[in-house]
């Protein structure tokens, strides 16, 4: 397997996931938290794409000239995941607007109270 291309991708996945998780855990601003969640989602999508990668593979289109192509299934999964992520983000922003209208700020004050 040709690791020259795959290794940087895995490093990027780890970086995106840890940046996102750091943001979710450390920030108090709700908008920043949702931005961090989007970053994490991008990390997972990149992981899926990297898993499906075949060295020197082309796009998975049926054609006599292409014999070696990348795994099409992860691409379909990522497409679904992107749509889901988009809808969650849209709903989150709608909710943040009404949160801002109620509280006058996007800072989250309360903790996870028991």
């Amino acid at each position, binding site marked *: 397997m040709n690791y020259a291309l795959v290794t940087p991708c895995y490093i990027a996945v780890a970086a995106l996931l840890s940046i996102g998780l750091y943001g979710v855990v450390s920030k108090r601003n709700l908008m920043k938290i949702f931005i961090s969640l989007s970053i994490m989602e991008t990390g997972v999508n990149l992981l899926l794409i990297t898993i499906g990668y075949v060295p020197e593979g082309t796009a998975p289109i049926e054609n006599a000239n292409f014999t070696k192509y990348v795994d099409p299934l992860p691409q379909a999964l990522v497409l679904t995941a992107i749509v*889901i992520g988009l809808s969650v983000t849209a709903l*989150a922003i709608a*909710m943040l607007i009404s949160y801002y209208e109620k509280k006058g700020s996007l800072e989250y004050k309360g903790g996870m109270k028991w």
Partner: protein
Amino acid sequence: MVVHPVLLIAIPLIAAFIIPLAKKYGSAIAAGAMAFNMGYAIGMFSYIYSNGKIYEMIAGFKPPVGIFLAVDALSAMLALLINLFAFINFIAIGKEWNYKFSMLYLLAIAGSTGIVLTGDIFNMFVFFEITAVASYALIAGKKDEKAIEGAIKYMVLGSIASIFILMGIALIYSQLKTLNIYDIATRISSMDEKIKWASFALLLTGIGVEAEIFPLNGWVPAAYQGASSGVASLLSFGPSKAAIYAIARIMMVIFPFHATYEIALYVGVVTLVIGELAAFMQEDVKRMLAYSSIGQMGLILIAFSLASQNIQNALIAAFFLIISHASAKSSLFLLSRSPSMGGAACKYTGIVGVLSIIGMPPLAGFWGKWYLMLAAINEKLWLVIMLVFFAGIVEAGYFARYLHKSMGNESKLNLRYKVAMVVMVSFTILLGLLPIAYKMASLPLWGW
């Protein structure tokens, strides 16, 4: 094949997309779709009860390539439970809601049914997301400060959960190149040991957020407190039950190892004890019921985790605990809409619901705990038995206080609420009499 389980998912989805086009008839369309689903789920359950498992290929592609639905007796029972209670609950709340709520309600029901029926792990993820997104919006629908705060909390944790589930799926796919649950199960031993456990941990953590398992349930009290009582009722019989069943399915089919059952047992015991103790300290009724739900989810997880040795007792226990909790807690949430519970219907609901959750014979909750004990005694788990008894005593304590405080003034609930509550809570009595009836007819309870 005569029965098509896919209709249980397709009909509410189609109805949900039709509703915005016919706004005026929103709740009528939703009620129609749910009535169909309820009837179909009853038919499917009786078909499976006599004929055994069914598999349905979607679009004619054979597994492992195509997506398919795998329905066994337990999942048919859960689909029936979710759709039946969805319809009854909708009787109570449907009329005061506008078309948007009916739409979201249908989406949440379609998603929970899908989680229960699917045999494809990515499909399960998609249904989790449908359910979760619909629930966020439903919780926020009350539009006051608490509702939005609860919804945002749930949303942050739910989004992290979905990322974890997707990552677990990606790890499994990277090794086995398949998403079919049964295909994964047959080839799980060829997976790299570390990646196998990493994917199990990711899936358990991700689904555990939806299934209200400690320490992933920080959203539960805020969301239940903020949501209107109809939505809280939906959350307690729909998504959470589907999620706990998804954990059980993943544990029993994909990872049937000694260590996974042990992890689930510990997590379940900790969830039970902490949930019940936290419930004891609450002042607000909805918060108390929410923490009590957490404890009950722990109890259900314990029941599933005992399935490695005595599958029969453990699954019967899980069956009764799920029924008892779904019917009793949903009706108690409907009851919590009004602070007082005077009047015959409200008193009946409150007392029967509370007794079933505590585990008084002959209600369904008693049989759940009874079979759980039988399974635990078989495995000589004395500490677990002690803790379950302890949790029961704590439950009795706070529920007695709850009953004492809320008896009194006439309740202001309208008739639809009362009918829905009474019908829901009566299922615990009906199913509690089932084992006795079976015993008298000397039939085996384990009919499938």
